[in-house]
């Protein structure tokens, strides 16, 4: 019998791809000589350590190991689970004796070699289904291709997600509706970017901000009119203060409904002729929940002495307007005047109603003699359009070949160019449309083609019998969509054209990570893995959260309950059913209901608003970015003595000694000795996205850590059970604390196997409320954060927990990170066949001392990333999920 320890040492010796290959061969021969047998070697280990709960009728977690009948092909998923438990040592549970190191290694080796049948001479890259661009990738690719920012978020249906990411090929489906949208998007984008005529009437934009604004004091004999009206905006129905007056955009002319004012501009017209005058404006308001604003004003617009607009405005709900006028203009100076007259000086100002003139456009002189090339003409049509039809065809072919090559991200064949030219010709050849419209119609077709919408990959077949390499164009795309969420740039494209990309991989990854476009990687990969992207849309009632910390635990109030019931009863009647007395009563009760106890005037702390949420999101992304760019230990993601803050976030977190940070810019900040912050688990993103609208959820926090940090998700709760945290038992009219409630439920065996893992992790963060602020008390009682992990470590504070995670659970964290990054990079979920690649990446990380670049390099150099499964191999999906 061979020595498994020496085998393990050999594993550890592997360095880099080359060595991996080499040693795998050695391993293979070892196994060939003396293979591990299930009955002889593995079964006794399982019997001794696992059968107690997973055999002979026992089926904990729906796993029965004695059902294994030797058919490894049918049980790969099962053994994948077993491997995971062995690797993370999370089975058997705490308090029961587990296998020795030697036994563990032996069992794991058996699973890898005999069950997964990983062939180290011919590693399997797996199947990556052809990927459709998701909304982000589409938007970025269009930006790089045509310089147009197309808002895919509001124009395309959301992409479905799988494995926590929105770039998973299998779920990126294409419905008829979406295809229809792609076609209309292509049209809209091309029409925005590509001119369809060679000349247009000149046009000049006079920005609103260029108008000089003058406030007229005595227009209504109102002495206050020159100052901002005194009426303070009222709070909304929850008693929250509303925002102050909106900031004026200096590029626009802003005129309040409440202030009589005039905006003037004199502009010079050089050539007399017909002009079009276009006024673009908005009747703006600042939304306040449930309180209206009854102000009105009159606005007039004069062009010289001609009155073009005279209109009364009420609250228009941010209606934007574009008004067009045809005018004959003489050469010389012209005066443009906007004038606003308030009509309701007595009305309170609630929503800051105002007229905002964005700009006035002068288009003209109109007529063939005055045409100028449209903006961007040179970019798409570098030469004048030739006259003869054969020259036109050649010019169209040249333009369309270039565009299609860029859009398809690989050279296009002549046949496709030919079809594009025919399409263009079918449009301009009729003589009714311009050459340019023909070409832009063909460009529209290119953007609607599956060759743009999908990322088609090609391979280079090697003679060595392994799975084929991807060609350089495909690798360029994999890299660029992985690290930039967009198409390859010129440099990648040129390297691919020369076939030199694969040999320059590391250099390119360096360059790409340091390019500003890599922000897409941090936003999309980190944003989804750590859910920091979600923080911006998370809905938390910061008010309800604050109340939990400021008050004693609510006791039942029969009078309030009665009123509430009565109000509900009245609200269910229709207007006609209510008596006058009931109407009054209802109004009273409504008022009471809207002003919640303690709601008015109580100090509320910094707002959990969009600014804070953006800062939180940036904090998480910047931490990962910092670690990756500086090649720091990955564990700093969990435990670091620094973070990224701006003034608002520093105040929000209330970190001692950091109150002095000023300004909006996020920056690297060293945390004071003993600070609880540092690492993603004490950041606002994690703390908020795992919370309920009105309180923390230790269960969700625990689950998040298991799923996204330790990589050992627990199975879903059985059906038809209430959420644990809500099942608080009443005692003396008081609710139980979450900790008490959770403790009761952990006594239940069905719940305990998972909640023993989740709860201590989640409860450790009870010092942080649902919006991520520090707290010591809830409902007047001190929160208790101490606990014991299911793996046995005890901790008193969150700092101890972080230490325990990064020292005792380092390898699990590496595996989890490798799994997540690989999933994102490949756009597919991983299964047991990919296990060897994760092993390799984790070894690479460990050998580098836990450095971040080893993770990224490991992914990029993996067989999965650089190769495709041989098309001739039967699609082997047996045993997969």
């Amino acid at each position: 019998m061979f020595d498994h320890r020496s085998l393990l040492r050999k594993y550890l010796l592997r360095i880099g791809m080359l060595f991996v290959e080499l040693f795998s061969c050695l391993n293979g021969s070892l196994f060939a000589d003396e293979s591990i047998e299930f009955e002889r070697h593995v079964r006794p280990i399982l019997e001794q350590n696992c059968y107690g709960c997973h055999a002979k009728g026992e089926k904990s977690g729906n796993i029965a190991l004695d059902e294994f009948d030797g058919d490894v092909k049918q049980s790969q998923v099962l053994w994948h689970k077993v491997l995971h438990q062995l690797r993370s040592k999370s089975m058997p549970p705490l308090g029961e004796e587990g296998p020795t190191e030697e036994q563990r290694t032996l069992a794991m080796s058996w699973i890898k070699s005999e069950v997964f049948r990983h062939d180290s001479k011919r590693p399997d890259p797996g199947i990556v289904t052809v990927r459709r661009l998701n909304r982000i990738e589409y938007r970025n690719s269009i930006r790089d291709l045509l310089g147009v920012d197309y808002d895919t978020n509001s124009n395309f249906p959301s992409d479905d997600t799988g494995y926590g990411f929105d770039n998973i090929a299998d779920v990126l489906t294409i419905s008829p509706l979406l295809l229809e949208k792609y076609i209309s998007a292509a049209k809209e984008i091309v029409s925005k970017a590509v001119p369809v005529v060679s000349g247009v009437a000149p046009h000049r934009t006079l920005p609103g901000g260029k108008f000089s604004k003058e406030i007229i004091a005595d227009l209504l004999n109102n002495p206050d009119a020159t100052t901002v009206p005194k009426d303070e905006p009222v709070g909304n129905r929850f008693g929250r203060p509303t925002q102050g007056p909106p900031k004026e955009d200096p590029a626009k002319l802003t005129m309040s409904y409440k202030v009589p004012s005039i905006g003037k501009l004199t502009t010079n017209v050089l050539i007399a002729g017909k002009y079009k005058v276009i006024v673009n404006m908005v009747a703006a308001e600042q939304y306040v929940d449930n309180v209206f604003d009854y102000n009105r004003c009159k606005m007039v617009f004069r062009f010289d002495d001609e009155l073009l607009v005279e209109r009364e405005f009420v609250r228009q709900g941010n209606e934007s307007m574009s008004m067009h006028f045809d005018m004959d203009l003489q050469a010389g100076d012209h005066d443009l005047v906007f004038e606003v007259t308030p009509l309701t000086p007595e009305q309170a100002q609630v929503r800051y109603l105002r007229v905002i003139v964005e700009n006035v456009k002068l288009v003209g002189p109109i007529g063939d003699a005055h045409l100028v090339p449209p903006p961007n003409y040179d970019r798409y049509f570098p030469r004048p359009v030739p006259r003869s039809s054969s020259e036109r065809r050649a010019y169209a072919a040249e333009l369309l070949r270039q565009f299609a090559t860029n859009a398809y991200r690989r050279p296009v064949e002549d046949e496709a160019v030919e079809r594009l030219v025919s399409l263009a010709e079918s449009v301009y050849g009729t003589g009714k449309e311009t050459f340019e419209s023909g070409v832009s119609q063909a460009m529209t077709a290119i953007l609607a083609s599956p060759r743009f919408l999908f990322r088609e990959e090609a391979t280079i077949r090697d003679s060595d019998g392994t799975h084929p390499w991807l060609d350089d164009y495909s690798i360029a795309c994999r890299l660029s969509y992985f690290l930039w969420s967009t198409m390859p740039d010129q440099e990648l494209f040129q390297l691919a054209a020369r076939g030199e990309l694969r040999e320059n991989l590391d250099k390119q990854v360096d360059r790409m990570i340091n390019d500003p476009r890599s922000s897409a990687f941090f936003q999309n990969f980190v944003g989804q893995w750590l859910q920091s992207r979600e923080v911006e849309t998370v809905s938390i009632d910061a008010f309800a959260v604050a109340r939990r910390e400021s008050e004693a635990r609510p006791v039942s109030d029969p009078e309030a309950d009665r009123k509430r019931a009565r109000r509900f009863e009245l609200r269910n009647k229709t207007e006609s059913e209510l008596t006058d007395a009931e109407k009054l009563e209802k109004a009273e009760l409504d008022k009471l209901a809207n002003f919640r106890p303690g709601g008015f005037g109580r100090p509320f702390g910094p707002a959990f608003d969009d600014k804070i949420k953006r800062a939180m999101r940036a904090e998480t992304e910047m931490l990962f970015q910092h670690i990756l760019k500086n090649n720091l230990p990955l564990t700093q993601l969990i435990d670091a003595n620094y973070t990224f803050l701006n003034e608002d976030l520093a105040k929000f977190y209330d970190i001692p000694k950091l109150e002095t940070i000023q300004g909006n810019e996020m920056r690297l900040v060293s945390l004071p000795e003993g600070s609880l912050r540092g690492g993603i688990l004490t950041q606002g993103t994690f703390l908020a996205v795992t919370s309920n609208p009105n309180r923390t959820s230790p269960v969700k926090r625990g689950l998040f850590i298991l799923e996204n940090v330790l990589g050992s998700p627990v199975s879903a709760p059985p059906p038809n059970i209430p959420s644990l945290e809500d099942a608080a038992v009443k005692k003396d009219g008081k609710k139980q604390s979450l900790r008490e409630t959770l403790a009761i439920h952990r006594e239940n065996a069905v719940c305990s196997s998972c909640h023993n893992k989740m709860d201590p992790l989640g409860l450790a963060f009870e010092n942080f409320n649902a919006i991520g602020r520090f707290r010591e008390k809830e409902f007047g009682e001190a929160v208790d954060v101490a606990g014991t992990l299911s793996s046995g470590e005890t901790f008193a504070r969150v700092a101890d927990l972080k230490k325990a995670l990064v020292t005792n659970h380092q390898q699990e964290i590496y595996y989890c990170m490798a799994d997540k990054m690989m999933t994102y990079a490949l756009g597919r979920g991983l299964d047991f066949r990919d296990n060897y690649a994760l092993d390799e990446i984790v070894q690479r990380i460990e050998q580098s001392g836990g450095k971040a670049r080893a993770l990224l390099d490991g992914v990029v150099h993996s067989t999965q990333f650089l190769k495709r499964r041989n098309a001739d191999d039967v699609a082997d999906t047996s045993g997969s999920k």
Partner: protein
Amino acid sequence: MRRSQIAMRRRQFLQGIGVCMALPALESLQSAKLFAVDSPALATTASGAPLRTAFVYFPNGAIPSAWWPSAGGDSDAKAYAMSQTLKPLESHRNSIQVLKGLDNLSANGGPDGGGDHARGNGTFLTGVRLKKSASDIQAGVSIDQIIAKSIGEKTRFASLELTCDSKRQTSGCDSGYSCAYQYNISWSSATTPMSPESNPRSVFERLFGAGNPGDRNEGLARRRNEQKSILDFVLEDARSMQRRLAVTDRDKLAQYLDGIREIEKRIEKAERFGAATDPAIETPAGVPDTYEKYVQLTYDLLFLAFQTDSTRVASLLLAHDGSNRSFDHIGIVEGHHDLTHHQNKADQIKKVEEIDLWYVRMFSGFLDKLAGAQDMDGKSLLHNSMIVYGSGNADGNRHTHSDLPIVLAGNAGGTLTPGRFVDHRSKPLTNLYLSMAERMGVHDLNRFGDSTERLSNL
């Protein structure tokens, strides 16, 4: 010298739409009749008017005690007392049936465990168990799509799918189920959800064309011609690509090709139908700023689609099951889903009841419009419709899928007997769908999902 053109008014869309619109549906109805090639009974009432059906889904079930009317044990009651939650429907009492005893057992957990929201949502219109997977989607074809496949030729659009969920979650949907299950109720095949449209502006422009009233049809025609030449090109690209791709990838391209064929068919159909009815109203600006306006506007668009006979089948997912939206506008700051797990606490139950009531109130407003609009046969649109209003969870607290809260509104042109509260005593919900499909003219459908027979006594 000058003329002021219309300033784009983006706001007051559809205010009092039912009143201000002259009904232009009649002409197109007649032309539609000309093109009806097969059985004249397809989606048509006995009087020759269009018969329409819609499926409206509200999330997270309803508090049963407040939802169900009482009829003193009578399983088929005319003189029942309207329940607290259904009170807003009192004025439509004679046009609705409250259906009790309908179950969707394929939404039960069974071996799949958690995920009742994904299942409640994803099986509501299919009655087929979902494959529990984050990426390998396997659902069933939904009833609206079955009907649309049969009758889609009669109208400009075979079906319409709407939602008032403008933002979809990007990760971590229900218990290992793909988000696709939770954000779609309508499925054209087991693997292809019909992604509902959430932007009212896009819905409007798809139905009637872009631009100002009067200009929309010309725009639609031009768009069709351009689309045809583009389609020819991309079709060839797709075919050449399919030849190069691996077997697994061909499925993806097949989706694309199906889409192309679908659009081609639509263009052909649009050409057959001639000009669309252009509602003389402004195009809505986009997603309104409050949920209440959003829901109202979406119902308005559905109404408009029916009124102009643009389609006869529609589905509306008001919010996905499991939705944790808060209802600040009625003073409820907690999330809807979280509240539904109320632990029998009176205050939480009340809040859920208020949310349930609010949803019913919005639905009642939709019925008001349908009831107020006259169809070509002189009856109301509501009379010539069948609208299911329901949820895939019964009791959101316990995640049950039996005794689902279901209201069937409309008379289906006189073939239904509304004005009743009927307990069907544990029949599959899909039995109801079979009966509805039959009324829509889909006679050859004898089984659907877990159906056992057509639901009688409707």
